[in-house]
C-alpha cells in the first residue's frame, strides 16, 4: 500500500531542509511547531549542532494558540528574540498544524520585519515534503532576497555551488573537496550554498560565470540566479575522477555558451542494469555516471524524493513508497543504497552500503565517504 513503511526509514522533512540550508548564514530559523521538530532536526538532521552555533528555534505552539489563531504571540516571541540576538535575517517555516489552520507565514514574517527592521521571510513548509523541497525554498529565498542585483557576471572562470547541505554530503570534507576540485581546474568559487560561505559571500553570487547545482535543492536558486544575472547552470556532483573531469568540461562549456543541463545523463545502458542505486536524483545520477566511467558498469537510479524528469536518465525511476521500491528492486542483483534500505532488498542480491544523512541520520555518519574527485574503488570508497 502507498504511504506505509513496514521497516524502512523516512527522509528528513522540508522544515529540516530549510534549517540545514540556512544554518551557516547567521540568520535565525523558527519552526512553527509544538515540539519535536526541534529535537528531530538537531538530533538526526544536523551534524553541526553540537560544535557550531546557529539560531534554530521552535515556536512551541500550543493547542489553545492554534485554536484561537493567536499569531500575535508568535510575532511577539520572534520579534523579542530577534532584537536580543541580532540575526542577519529571520526565516519562519511551518509544520502540519500551521498548514491545517492556514497560518500565513509570509505575512507573519513581514510583520516581524516591520517591527525589527531585520529581513524576514516565511517559507510554506508543512512537514509533508522532503528536505529537498525545504532547502530549495530557502536557497531560492536567499537568492531572491540577498543576491546583490547590481553585480554582473564577470569574465573568467568562476562558479557558485548550489544545493550543498550535510543532509546530502554529510560533514566528511565533501564540501571542501568540491571547492578544491573546482579551484584546481581554474575556477574561482564565489560562494557555496550553503556550507563554508557567509551570507555576504552568497550575496556576491551574481559575479559567477556559471553555477554548479549539486542537489535538487539547488535548482530553484539556480533558476532564480539565471533570471537575475543570466548565469547558466550545470547539474551534477563531481564524483570520481573521470566523471568530475566531464563535469568540469560541462561547466566550461556552459560558461561559454550559456547552455544549461544535467551532466550525468549520458552513461552506459543495458536492458538489465548491472547496478541499482537508490537516492537523491542529482547525487545518485552523478554516482551512476561516475560508476559507468570508472567501472564500465551500467546503473539505474530509483529516486524516492522530489525531482524533475530532466534530472533522471532513461531507465531511472521515481519510487516514493516502500512497496514501489520492493517491486522495482526485484530484478536487481546489485544494489547501492543507504543501509536502512537493506531489509527490503531481494534475498541473494549484493548490497553496497552508502549511507545518507538525509535517510539514516547520524547512525552511519562515520561510514559516509568523501567521493568527490577521487577514485571510487579506493580505501574508504564504495568498492564495487
Amino acid at each position, binding site marked *: 500500500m502507498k504511504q506505509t513503511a513496514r521497516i524502512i526509514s*523516512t527522509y528528513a522533512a522540508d522544515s529540516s531542509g530549510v534549517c540545514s540550508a540556512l544554518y551557516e548564514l547567521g540568520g535565525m530559523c523558527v519552526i512553527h511547531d*509544538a515540539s519535536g521538530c526541534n529535537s528531530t532536526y538537531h538530533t538526526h538532521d544536523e551534524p553541526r549542532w553540537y560544535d557550531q552555533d546557529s539560531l534554530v*528555534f521552535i515556536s512551541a505552539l500550543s493547542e489553545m494558540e492554534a485554536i484561537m489563531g493567536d499569531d500575535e504571540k508568535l510575532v511577539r516571541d520572534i520579534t523579542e528574540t530577534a532584537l536580543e540576538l541580532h540575526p542577519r535575517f529571520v526565516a519562519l517555516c511551518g509544520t502540519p498544524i500551521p498548514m491545517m489552520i492556514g497560518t500565513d507565514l509570509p505575512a507573519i514574517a513581514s510583520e516581524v520585519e516591520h517591527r525589527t527592521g531585520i529581513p524576514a521571510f516565511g517559507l510554506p513548509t508543512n512537514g509533508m515534503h522532503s528536505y529537498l523541497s525545504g532547502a530549495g525554498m530557502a536557497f531560492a529565498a536567499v537568492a531572491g532576497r540577498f543576491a546583490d542585483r547590481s553585480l554582473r557576471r564577470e569574465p573568467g572562470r568562476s562558479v557558485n555551488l548550489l544545493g550543498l547541505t550535510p543532509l546530502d554530503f554529510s560533514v566528511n570534507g565533501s564540501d571542501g573537496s568540491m571547492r578544491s576540485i573546482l579551484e584546481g581546474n581554474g575556477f574561482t568559487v564565489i560562494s557555496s550554498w550553503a556550507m563554508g560561505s557567509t551570507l555576504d559571500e552568497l550575496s556576491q553570487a551574481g559575479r559567477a560565470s556559471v553555477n554548479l547545482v549539486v542537489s535538487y535543492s539547488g535548482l530553484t536558486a539556480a533558476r532564480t540566479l539565471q533570471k537575475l544575472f543570466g548565469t547558466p547552470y550545470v547539474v551534477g556532483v563531481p564524483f570520481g575522477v573521470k566523471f568530475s573531469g566531464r563535469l568540469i568540461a560541462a561547466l566550461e562549456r556552459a560558461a561559454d555558451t550559456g547552455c544549461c543541463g544535467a551532466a550525468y545523463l549520458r552513461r552506459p545502458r543495458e536492458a538489465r542494469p548491472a547496478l541499482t542505486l537508490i537516492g537523491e536524483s542529482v547525487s545518485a545520477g552523478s554516482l551512476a555516471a561516475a560508476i559507468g566511467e570508472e567501472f564500465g558498469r551500467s546503473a539505474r537510479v530509483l529516486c524516492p524524493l522530489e525531482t524533475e524528469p530532466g534530472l533522471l536518465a532513461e531507465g531511472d525511476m521515481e519510487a516514493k513508497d516502500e512497496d514501489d521500491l520492493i517491486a522495482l528492486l526485484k530484478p536487481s542483483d546489485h544494489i547501492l543504497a543507504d543501509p536502512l534500505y537493506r531489509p527490503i532488498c531481494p534475498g541473494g542480491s549484493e548490497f553496497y552500503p552508502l549511507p545518507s544523512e538525509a535517510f539514516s541520520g547520524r547512525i552511519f555518519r562515520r561510514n559516509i565517504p568523501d567521493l568527490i574527485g577521487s577514485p571510487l574503488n579506493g580505501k574508504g570508497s564504495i568498492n564495487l
Partner: protein
Amino acid sequence: MLKRIGAEPDETGAAVAIKDAAFPAPFPSGLEYGAPARGMWNIVHTGMLLPEAHQIFVCAAGCLRGVVLTAAEMKAEERFSTVEIREENVLDGDMEELIIDGVTDILNKLPCMPPAVLIFTSCIHHFMSCDLPQVYRVLRERFPQTAFTDCYMNPIMRKSGLTPDQLMRKQLYSLLKPRPKDPKAVNLIGNDLPTDASSELVRMIQKNGFRLRDITWCRTYGEYQEMAEASVNLSTYPSAVAGCEELERRLGQKQLYLPQSFDYDEIEDNLCRLAGCLSIDAPQTAPGRARAERALQGAREVIGDMAVSVDYTATPRPLGLARLLCQHGFRVASVYLDAINEEERGAFGWLRTHVPELMLRATIHPKMRVLPRAGREPVLAIGQKAAYFTGTRHFVNIVEGGGMYGYDGIARLAGLMTGAYLEERDARSLIQAKGLGCACCI
C-alpha cells in the same frame, strides 16, 4: 559559522537567582531551543518496554523522522512501522480509512502477528476530530488475536490535560487484562528504568514475601500480562501517577504514589505508607539513613567546594536534591530547569531562604544557544543538561533518577558524585546518545 552582530547577550530572562524567581514558572515562555543532551527517553523508547509489541506511527513525514530513527538507533526496526499522512489525506478527510488500511497492510506483511500493537496518532488526528473509536473497532474486528491500544504523539496537547509523557506511561498498561488478584503481588508502574534491587523499597517488598513486578523486567508479553495479578501498584515517578490511577479504576489495583525523594522525612513517610498498605512492619531505616549520611559526608570531603550544578533531567526533584546537597555542605551553584513541579514547592521555599543566590537557569530559552557554556570555575554536574551547559567533563550521567530510590539511592548518588569528581568523562559522546539505559547504536 554564526557571526554575532550585536553585543553578546546577557543572561537576563534565561537565569534568575532563586530569591527573585517566580513559582512555578521562573522564566518567560517564548521561542524554544533544544540542547544536544539526549539521554531522556521518548515515547518510542517507553513503548518498546512492552515485550513483543509492534509500534505503528501515523503522522506526517516530518513527525515520523525522529521516531523512525529512534527505533533504528535502538536496532528495533523490526518492531516499528509507519503510515505517512500526506496533504491529500488532510484535504480529503479520509484519515480513518488511511489508519485502518495502513495498519492492516503493515500487519499483513509482518513475519508473525504480534500479540499487541501500539498505534500512535498525532496532532493532525486531534485537530481533524478523527473517529479513533471507530478505527480501533474495525481493527479489533479484523485482527481479533491482537490487542490494540491507542497511543499519542501529539505534543501540541502538552499544556492541555495529560502530557504526552504521562499518556504514554498510562497507555503502556492499558492492555493488561483483568485477572484474579494475588494479595502477595505488587507492581512498580511507569518507570523507564528498573529501580535498584538494593533500595529499601524493593528490599522491603521482596523480604516480606511479595512478588514484585516491573515492566522493565518483563521479557515476554505473558510476563507483562501477569502484572494484572497485583493487588497494589506503586509509582515513584510523577508522570506515572495518572497510569496508576487509571489501573486502580480499571482493574481495581490499589495505587500508592511513593515519590523519588531526597527529603528524609518524606522517605520515612513513603516507607511507612508502603508498610501500612502491605500490612507489614515498618522498616528499620536508621542503618540506611546512616549509610546515606556517611556517603554524603565522604563525597563532600572529596569534592570540597567545587561548584555543583543539577538539572531536571537527572531527577524529577532537582530542587529537592539541591536542598539535600546544600544541607550537607556542598556548594550548589545552579539548577537547570524550565518549570518547577508543584511537588518541589517546599524545597523551593527552603532554598529561597537558605541559599538565596542559587541560580536557576533555563534550558530551552533561546539565549541558552549563545550564552557561554564553559564556566568561569570547575563544575561537577548532575545530569546531562547541566553537563552540557557548564561545559564540564565531571558529571553524573543519569536520567529520570537513574533507578535510585530512598536512602540507598542517596548513598549511591553520593558515590557517583565522587566518581564524577575523580574521573573525567567525554560528555560530548555520552550525552548525545538517545534514551540512556536503552540499546543505542550511536
